[in-house]
């Protein structure tokens, strides 16, 4: 499972972003995205995540919850996007990509999918946990082993884990915002904030 987390201001200015991988089930916490063109990894994640903003703005006025759950999917890369909206309109977006295309109908992914899976097998060779993961994902019965929040991105456990993560980041964000030296729309550059976010990622995702 690979994650890309970004904070966008109400006027769509990126304030913070971080890529990380899962630390559960023997993951090493390094993001390994599978996209057709590996060189453009960062652009792709940003592109996918920003393209979900329209969905977010639609969901924003339908319910008053801060955590909007899983709002968008990008099937070609089997990327799932969850969103959290602070009351002041700042958006937290988390893109997560399970280690193996969750739906067996990956014909849509075409050539990209095949390349992606090959890179995946390369990268996962180092760690035993991930191999185990892929195996359970292959079964694709929806309910995989209890520890795998990663394998099924729309499962209630995943939603809950993401919600916990978002809530923890929100705490750090409020602390940032309360600083008198922070103005709305400024990039969050504090290394302490960054380490807090990655700690929350290790803890929940």
């Amino acid at each position: 499972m690979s994650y890309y987390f970004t904070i966008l201001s109400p006027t769509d200015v990126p304030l913070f972003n971080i890529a990380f991988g899962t630390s559960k089930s023997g993951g090493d916490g390094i993001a390994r995205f599978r996209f057709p063109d590996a060189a453009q990894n960062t652009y792709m994640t940003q592109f996918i995540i920003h393209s979900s903003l329209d969905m977010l703005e639609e969901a924003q006025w339908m319910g008053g919850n801060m955590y909007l759950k899983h709002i968008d999917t990008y099937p070609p890369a089997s990327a799932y996007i969850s969103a959290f909206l602070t009351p002041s309109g700042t958006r937290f977006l988390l893109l997560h990509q399970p280690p193996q295309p969750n739906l067996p109908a990956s014909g849509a992914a075409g050539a990209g999918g095949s390349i992606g899976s090959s890179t995946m097998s390369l990268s996962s060779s180092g760690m035993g946990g991930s191999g185990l993961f892929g195996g359970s994902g292959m079964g694709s019965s929806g309910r995989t082993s209890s520890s795998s929040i990663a394998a099924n991105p729309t499962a209630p456990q995943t939603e809950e884990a993401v919600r916990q993560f978002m809530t923890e980041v929100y705490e750090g964000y409020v602390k940032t915002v309360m600083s008198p030296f922070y103005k709305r729309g400024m990039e969050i550059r504090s290394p302490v904030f960054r380490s807090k976010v990655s700690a929350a990622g290790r803890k929940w995702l």
Partner: protein
Amino acid sequence: MSHPPRRSSMLSTSSSAQTVTPSEKQVPPQPQLQTPTQSNPGLRVPSNRKTIYDRHLNRSRNAESSRASFAFLFGEMVTYAQRRVTGIQDLERRLNEQGYPLGLRLLDLLFYRTMSSSSSSALSSSSTSASPPNRPLRILPLLHLIHGPLWRLLFNRPADALEHSVSPDTPNEYMITDNDPLVNSYISVPKEMNQLNCAAYVAGIIEGVCDGCGFEAKVTAHNQPTELWPSRTIFLLRFGESVMEREKVLERAGVK
């Protein structure tokens, strides 16, 4: 991407480039290399190793600041805003601008506190439901949020009245009344400036809250003295066209 350089020889340049980073708010000059989670030569933390991220946001929730020091500070803020000002309108605008960022912050703080202490009902009002606080989607919940929880956070009591304009021409106008605004209690306005109401600062806070929630609004403070309450102030909220349009759409969609 924005990691400061790791070489300690770069310390001087990296620290000068980072002076606006929020975590470096309370920094003594000596560089402390150990942060709680990573060692990072570019970051200087206070000698007690506590950055703003290590402090709990609810620590000061029941703490109150002294009224005298607030009055003094606010007096200075008015004096500051009064410099090279062209008129009363301009002065009120400047006060409003000082309050605006505070409103944005308070909004997040208010929700954080409500969220982290859903068991206690101190901040949750009838409008924002108890356990998971909801973002206000319609005008009325927003006004209740301002009238109740926000006012309690700021002044330790709810505002005194909340009214909707009776005139059919101005359905976008709402009024929040405070009989005795704290900000005005130690301010005596000279006769020739009797239009001035320094609660424009509070109006700015309200405007920040409205804007933060996505309700574009202009908020102004007006004197409306009565015999009983000589400093009674009315905050007039004028919501923008877009807000009223959305309000209609949401009403049709049945969103509360």
